[in-house]
């Protein structure tokens, strides 16, 4: 099995780990966004609460969720290992350097963007995931069946302007992170082709870097405006 550890600890192998976990996390964003669109239903959270019940009780979803937690940790940990190694590859820095002349900003700042996202994920999971699993969430009853009213927690969190701002900023960060990360993930796997690379770039730039973050950012803004009676 020496070849497995050797492969995964090589510079290319580490990037493959980053790629596979990153692309998996990207696919999760689609599911997460689609589900959370229930917040826009205007049914005082019934559809959303039924959806969260499904997400916390379906055995397939629960199994995949452990893969998700592992991917977040592996992605962050491997990023740290890679960053350390990459920094050590240039012990003496240039006195004067103009990287903006040859590469996009997001591609050079994936570590900073990723750190912002990790902090966001911690705050985000503390507010919702932790409360849902271990906190005391009020109950709601639909058709005689009891549901945890996570919608109430969502409303409370998003009624605070600074919390909404934190989410919007984090979504900008995820936009920049995915603008580079999504297409870069395919490159690390060697998937590059005249026919498919433009499609991958298009999906990365518009769907993952623009539409998904915009949809996520719209949720706290919508709830904030609704709670404060503006809409």
């Amino acid at each position: 099995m020496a070849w497995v550890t050797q492969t995964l600890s090589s510079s290319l192998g580490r990037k493959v780990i980053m790629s596979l976990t990153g692309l998996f996390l990207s696919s999760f964003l689609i599911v997460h966004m689609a589900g959370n669109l229930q917040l826009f239903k205007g049914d005082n959270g019934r559809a959303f609460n039924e959806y969260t019940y499904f997400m916390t009780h379906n055995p397939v979803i629960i199994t995949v969720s452990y893969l998700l937690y592992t991917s977040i940790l592996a992605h962050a940990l491997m990023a740290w290992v890679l960053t350390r190694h990459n920094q050590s590859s240039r012990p003496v820095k240039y006195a004067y350097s103009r990287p903006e002349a040859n590469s996009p900003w997001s591609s050079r700042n994936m570590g900073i963007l990723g750190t912002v996202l990790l902090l966001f994920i911690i705050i985000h999971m503390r507010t919702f995931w932790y409360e849902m699993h271990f906190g005391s969430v009020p109950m709601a009853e639909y058709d005689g069946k009891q549901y945890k009213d996570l919608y109430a927690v969502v409303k409370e969190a998003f009624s605070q302007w600074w919390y909404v701002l934190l989410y919007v900023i984090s979504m900008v960060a995820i936009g920049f992170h995915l603008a580079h990360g999504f297409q870069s993930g395919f490159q690390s796997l060697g998937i590059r082709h005249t026919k498919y690379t433009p499609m991958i770039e298009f999906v990365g730039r518009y769907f993952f870097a623009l539409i998904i973050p915009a949809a996520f950012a719209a949720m706290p803004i919508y709830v904030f405006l609704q709670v404060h009676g503006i809409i």
Partner: protein
Amino acid sequence: MKINLKVWRQKNNNTEGKLVEYQLDKISPDMSFLEMFDVLNGELTKKGEEIIAFDHDCREGICGSCSMYINGRAHGPQTGATTCQLHMRSFNDGDTIVVEPWRSRAFPVIKDLMVDRTAFDRVIQSGGYVSVNTGSARDANETLIPRSIADEAMDAAQCIGCGACVAACKNASAMLFVAAKVSHMAVLPQGQAESTERAERMVAQMDAEGFGACSFTGACSVECPKSISLDHIARMNREYLGAKLTSTNVQG
């Protein structure tokens, strides 16, 4: 032209270096950047000072010797060109130009602007070759290769091993260099015999030399004097992963 220079001076790899300022008054815009350094070294010689050490050889853009990080970019502001192909007309009268050596753990400074690039040689030695029968010369058209494949191989083989990719990369990664060397043989029939071992060995040697990993910023390809495409990096990734998954080498 009047030019203010800030040049990295460093006695050897064991001493600290620093930027030293020089003024030049009579520089022709038609001079190449290296000729401007020749003028400066001539003046230093007249003054009895130690001349600035820098690598140069062909002065026609094919040897890859002239490694200079000029005003924050590998080989200066021009793209698709080496330092010897850069002319003083690319600068303005009175400009201050900062000149540094390539910065990489794998490229230790020998003196001033000269760096030791033998790390590249060791990467080539590890797998950048094809085995051929020696003896009488083979017929030139013995192995027929379609034009498009020959072109693809030639695009990669254009690499002159200058190290600009390493110099420009934020991670000091040698991916474009190694990829070009893996790629130009991977697409040709002559390169198939060692195909799997080649990618494994060359990547292992690249890592052992202390180069960074690829962040796919694309800086290497932009600064490459031969404009080698990122396609080759993807091909090396494919070659490497394919080799790792299918070779019989279980020791790594």
